[in-house]
């Protein structure tokens, strides 16, 4: 261990080399442009775009956001420009940055997912990963999210993988009771990895006006509040499926947060909500991660992925001390 040397922060995710593990999360970085005034975006390992659907979507009524203790609720409603406008107007900007482009996508029904994957395949020269968001309500199956039932998720992922040569990483919902089963199902269906986690469904109440704080009643909870839940799911999935690449996220806003996710089993991480308060947060996280490696004597960051050890057992209990 040579603490003076610059630590090697490179990681690999599903066979893809990355200079370091710090990406930015879908829906929290738009299509990149709003952040261009703040810093050189090519310093990011990658950008996950706002979720793209086959047709443009206007999003949900206002108000769409509400802050909660150490977190926020959003019901943006998956507003996006639609796949055609994305490929035409947004992808070129991203492609020019030279960072890994993860295009987050979804459909409003089974066929919508498939159509979207097929359409995005046309951008394959500039797209590194299709990050498939399975947290949308499945209208055909009574509104339950596609990502809640392993079999449903499996079939959907398989159909999408058949449409494209771009690796598909499936982004799972922390609302599911058994993420290991779902991760296993999507792995079997051909997913190159999983992104863990999306937002947890929540709500807040305006007691004065006797109505929910969000126009849609429910929204997705993100930010530091959910970090313990996200870490738990990353660890559970990594422990059960150690070969499945994981991109971890949920409340990351420091280098130490990022390292927690890596040690729990994520090969790379995404920063979401923290971009809003601090548009340059990814650079700070990267700097802190580097400094922390020096501090902790980590020469190669890739080596700590999933390195957590369980606690040593306590000495056995006896009535009289030995």
């Amino acid at each position: 261990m040579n603490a003076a040397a610059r630590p090697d922060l490179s990681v690999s995710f599903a066979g893809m080399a990355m200079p370091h593990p710090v990406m930015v999360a879908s829906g929290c970085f738009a299509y990149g442009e709003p952040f261009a005034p703040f810093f050189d975006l090519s310093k990011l390992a990658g950008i996950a775009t706002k979720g793209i659907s086959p047709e443009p979507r206007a999003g949900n009524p206002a108000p769409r956001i509400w802050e909660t203790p150490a977190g926020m609720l959003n019901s943006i409603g998956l507003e996006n420009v639609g796949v055609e406008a994305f490929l035409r107007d947004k992808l070129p900007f991203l492609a020019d940055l030279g960072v890994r482009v993860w295009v987050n996508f979804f459909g409003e029904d089974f066929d919508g997912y498939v159509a979207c994957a097929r359409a995005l395949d046309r951008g394959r020269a500039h797209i590194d990963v299709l990050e498939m968001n399975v947290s949308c309500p499945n209208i055909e199956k009574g509104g339950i999210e596609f990502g809640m039932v392993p079999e449903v998720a499996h079939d959907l992922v398989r159909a999408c993988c058949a449409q494209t040569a771009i690796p598909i990483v499936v982004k799972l919902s922390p609302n599911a009771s058994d993420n290991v089963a779902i991760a296993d199902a999507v792995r079997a269906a051909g997913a190159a990895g999983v992104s863990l986690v999306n937002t947890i469904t929540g709500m807040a109440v305006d007691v004065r006006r006797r109505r929910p704080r969000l126009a849609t009643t429910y929204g997705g909870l993100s930010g530091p509040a959910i970090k313990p839940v996200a870490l738990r799911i990353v660890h559970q999935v990594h422990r059960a499926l150690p070969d499945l690449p994981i991109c971890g996220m949920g409340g990351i806003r420091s280098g130490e947060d990022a390292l927690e996710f890596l040690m729990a089993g994520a090969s790379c991480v995404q920063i979401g909500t923290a971009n809003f308060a601090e548009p340059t947060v990814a650079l700070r996280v990267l700097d802190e991660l580097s400094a922390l490696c020096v501090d902790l004597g980590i020469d190669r960051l890739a080596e700590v992925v999933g390195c957590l050890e369980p606690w040593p057992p306590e000495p056995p209990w006896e009535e009289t001390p030995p």
Partner: protein
Amino acid sequence: MKRAVPTPAEPTHRSRPPRCGPPAFFAARLSAHRELTGGYFELSFTYDEGPDLRGVVPGAFVMVRGSWDADPTGPRAFSILDAPEPGRVTILLKVYGRGTARLAALRPGAAVSLTAPLGRGFSATTAGGPRRLLVAGGVGLPPLHLLARRAAQAGLAGAVTMIYGGRDADDLVLVEPLRACGVEVVLATEDGSAGVRGRVTAPLAERLDAAAAARTPVEICACGPEGMLRAVRSLALARRVPAQLCLEANMACGFGACLGCAVPVYGPRPYRYCCTDGPVFDAREVRW
């Protein structure tokens, strides 16, 4: 769930408010902290590196966050009250909830981070333009205060009238500096403890009537609580008077990244964004 939406092209505007320069994110410190009446605070932030905000459009805002830990998570939006010199910006803050309470409790010297300049503001007051009725309610004062002072600086103090309302006399702040630069200020309080008793809409309606009678072209510039803005909008639409409204929305970022600050509008798309398309909107455009 699904709505038909035209492929997004930059929407055309009937009155597109002027935009500030590109935003920067920078460190600053609280340099002055003055408690006014009514739970208002005037906070000044100074910084070594960051944009010169002197030329900022009235209505432009700054996102402010203290250098604290996880809670509150997000920054809060504040209209720029003044930017008297490079490296300095002033806001008027009213304690409302968790974020404003924590900001108000900061001590001079405290580190904060700012994102600014943000938003599109009110158009400038012009010599040959319509007479401007500035309607401010409560914490909606700052952008109009700046607008009025700008007009006065340009020798147009006579072209603006400030109609400023609040709960009571304590709820009305920074009135003297306006009068000092020659701006007419009409006060309205709900309890009648200062100016006329009642809401700002009554003096506004009076002025609109007078202007109509005298055939003076007028324009409304308003900022305040949503209820007030809705009333102002109704008045303006009914009388076909142009009105620019400075809106509020819950904001997570302030610079177009989260899409949280949707404002329902008429036009090519159902929503526009308070932070990047506003906060100043044409009253006719707002879908209320």
